[in-house]
């Protein structure tokens, strides 16, 4: 079984979109207060959820053809994107510890995918 390029592109686009969705979820989450309208009229939350949903549709489509061993590591690239977004949009500090943590996770996922057939 080989993994079609189309699946890889779907997963890659899906993980970038998904990590972008997390930005909207977070900025929307900060706007929530005791008023129900702060959830119902929260366009950032709505956009975040839609983006998330879209990314999972792409995931489902991408995962349906191809090997998980190739596709899994592509999913994890979303984590790297998230570090960039967090710095850009929320001015979070990217410490060496965070880089080390994400680095370990990427290596671990790559090992996992090498072990799954």
């Amino acid at each position, binding site marked *: 079984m080989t993994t079609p390029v189309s699946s890889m592109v779907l997963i890659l686009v899906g993980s970038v979109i998904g*990590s972008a969705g*997390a*930005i909207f*979820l*977070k*900025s*929307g*989450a*900060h*706007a*929530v207060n005791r008023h129900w309208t702060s959830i119902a009229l929260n366009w950032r*939350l709505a956009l*975040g*959820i839609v983006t*998330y949903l879209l990314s*999972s*549709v792409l*995931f*489902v*489509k991408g*995962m*349906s*053809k191809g090997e998980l061993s190739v596709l*899994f590591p592509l999913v*994890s690239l*979303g*984590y790297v994107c*998230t*570090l960039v*977004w*967090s*710095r850009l*949009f*929320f001015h*979070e*500090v*990217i*410490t060496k*510890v*965070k880089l*080390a*943590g*994400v*680095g*370990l*996770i*990427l*290596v*671990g*996922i*790559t*090992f*996992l*995918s*090498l*072990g*799954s*057939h």
Partner: protein
Amino acid sequence: MTPATTAPEVHVPDPAKRKLAIFIVLACTLLVAMAQYLIKLGANRLSHAGLLATAIGIFTIPQLFAGYCLYGLFTVLFIYALRHGELSILYPLIALSYVWVTITGILAFHESMSAFKIVGVLIIICGVGVLGFGGGAGAE
């Protein structure tokens, strides 16, 4: 992204709530693992479907629907966690779900165990530990 709403969002993280946020996301990875398994089961029936048919399938294929309901629950909890924690920590923590998927695969579905898988699981646990327990250096 312009924070045009009420208070300017200067994040003053409450340590207790940050810990809670991390704990919530770690617990949530169990939900994600279950959701992913169900979605994978359902997705096998969609290998020849187009993008639209895939979207419809989310509502008509029971496994996919159940998987996405779990994802929905996860999203609600994740949003709550994001209020109190850093995105750069919480999002990568979701990777712990890979560990559950792998362990469940081996124990419950008799997938083969390999040295690669064991090493991978251990490294991911280390990474999650480093992020979760050592990553929260709010401002320095």
